[in-house]
């Protein structure tokens, strides 16, 4: 049942909506529409979109790979220092991305802690697409950890107990009961992680540099264009706006607003 809201709240909500709408309206008003075709088919846009897709999808995959196990560990086990590990797992969400970038350099850069071993096996991350994906994954995997951790807390453990009492192994219970039950949360986390990876800027430019076709994602392309061709920057920005909106509308809150 719907309840009526105080007028003041409605007014503030309208302001909030305007807060989001105005910058988009500004982009629309400023965009040099007559150059749309030329700009959308330019190397910068095509290569930027390609790199962005690879990097954001790669980052989402990496995030799932490390985020789900960590979320399970945090949500299902109890050990001394759990609070610290939980805080560490969420640190990339709070850190300024440029700090994340410096941290990644000191860990995986040429002279980083793991730089030597990584090179020994032929893995060079700075200035590579893989490096850009690592940077994006670093800042986005906490979304999956959070989703799994939170999902576990609201999960009815009865089904898992039942499976275990019928002789199912731990691995079997995890695969056939726990993970399927968590699927909506994991999917929601993955979408948020992907969206965060798509928008990544600071860690990427710091750790992976800026090279078209290799590490120049759309946000980096927008930033570079802004220096000398603001018109191009607005068109490229609108591509990101449209892409992000399309994803959100396609999901219609199915994942993000679970229970609504």
């Amino acid at each position, binding site marked *: 049942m719907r309840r009526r809201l105080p007028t003041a709240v409605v007014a503030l909500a309208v302001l909030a909506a305007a807060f989001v709408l105005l910058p988009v309206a500004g982009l629309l008003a400023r965009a040099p529409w007559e150059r749309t075709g030329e700009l959308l088919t330019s190397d910068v846009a095509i290569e930027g979109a390609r790199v962005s897709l690879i990097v954001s999808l790669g980052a989402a995959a990496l995030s799932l790979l490390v985020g789900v196990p960590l979320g399970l560990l945090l949500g299902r086990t109890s050990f001394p220092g759990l609070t610290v590990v939980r805080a560490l797992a969420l640190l990339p969400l709070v850190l300024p991305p440029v700090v994340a970038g410096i941290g990644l350099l000191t860990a995986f*850069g040429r002279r980083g802690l793991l730089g030597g071993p990584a090179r020994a096996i032929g893995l060079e991350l700075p*200035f590579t697409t893989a490096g850009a994906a690592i940077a994006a994954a670093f800042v986005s995997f906490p979304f999956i950890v959070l989703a799994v951790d939170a999902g576990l807390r609201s999960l009815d453990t009865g089904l898992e107990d039942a499976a275990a009492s019928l002789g199912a192994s731990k691995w079997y219970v995890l695969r056939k009961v726990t993970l399927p039950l968590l699927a909506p949360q994991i999917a929601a986390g993955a979408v948020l992680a992907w969206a965060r990876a798509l928008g990544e800027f600071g860690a990427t430019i710091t750790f992976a540099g800026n090279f078209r076709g290799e590490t120049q994602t759309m946000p980096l392309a927008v*930033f570079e264009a802004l220096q*000398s061709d603001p018109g191009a920057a607005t068109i490229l920005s609108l591509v990101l706006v449209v892409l992000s909106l399309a994803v959100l509308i396609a999901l219609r809150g199915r994942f993000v607003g679970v229970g609504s």
Partner: protein
Amino acid sequence: MKMRTALLVAVLLVASACGSNEPTAPKTITVFGAASLTEAFTQIAADFGDQHGTKVRLSFGPSDGLATQIQEGAPVDVFASASPKWMDAVEEDPGVTDRADFARNLLVVITPSHNPAGVDSVDDLGRPGIKLVLAAEGVPVGDYARQMLGNAGIADAALANVVSNEDDVKGVVQKVALGEADAGIVYRTDVTAAVAGDVAVMEVPNDVNVIAVYPIAALADSPTGSLASEFVTYVLGPGQTVLRDAGFLPP
């Protein structure tokens, strides 16, 4: 590297906070300077501020980005560019006064101090496998570097080695100083005391080098009027010593 996003946001915030119809306090002037001027202008601004009892707010970045910000209405009183190209743009819109060239600069090749790739000459920059970092096209030092590589006749080979186009010259210095890149092309004034221990410098022969010319001007619509002009005069006068110490050539 320089966090220009933050800078841009700050500038936009300031722009929205004090808008053009609300005059800046007369005792503060805002100077936009090319990233390569960071150290010299920080000193000059401090000296000028002491002498005139004014506060000088500084913002450094790539000249192309600064020019764009000025054209977008950033409240700036003085602009110092690393290239006449971007001063021309600002002179056209929104307009400047007291324009003069105040310094020149030369390019050098820098490598990490242990020079892992053994870069010993400009020609080595075209050797396959070298990781070269330049400033992006449009950024003055990026354009000058490409011109220099062309003069040396190795443009194609060297550009194939570029692994990152940094958004300003300081970004190039950082990537090399951190040891992530094998070589970079920067102004000789960018090898400051802060990074001198981390990088090795290789001079570029005069016959292929490119001389960067730095113009400065007061913005025509600066509400500080004569104070902006005084700063320009100061840079052309007493400020020259600081610029010379930093390695800049006379205009």
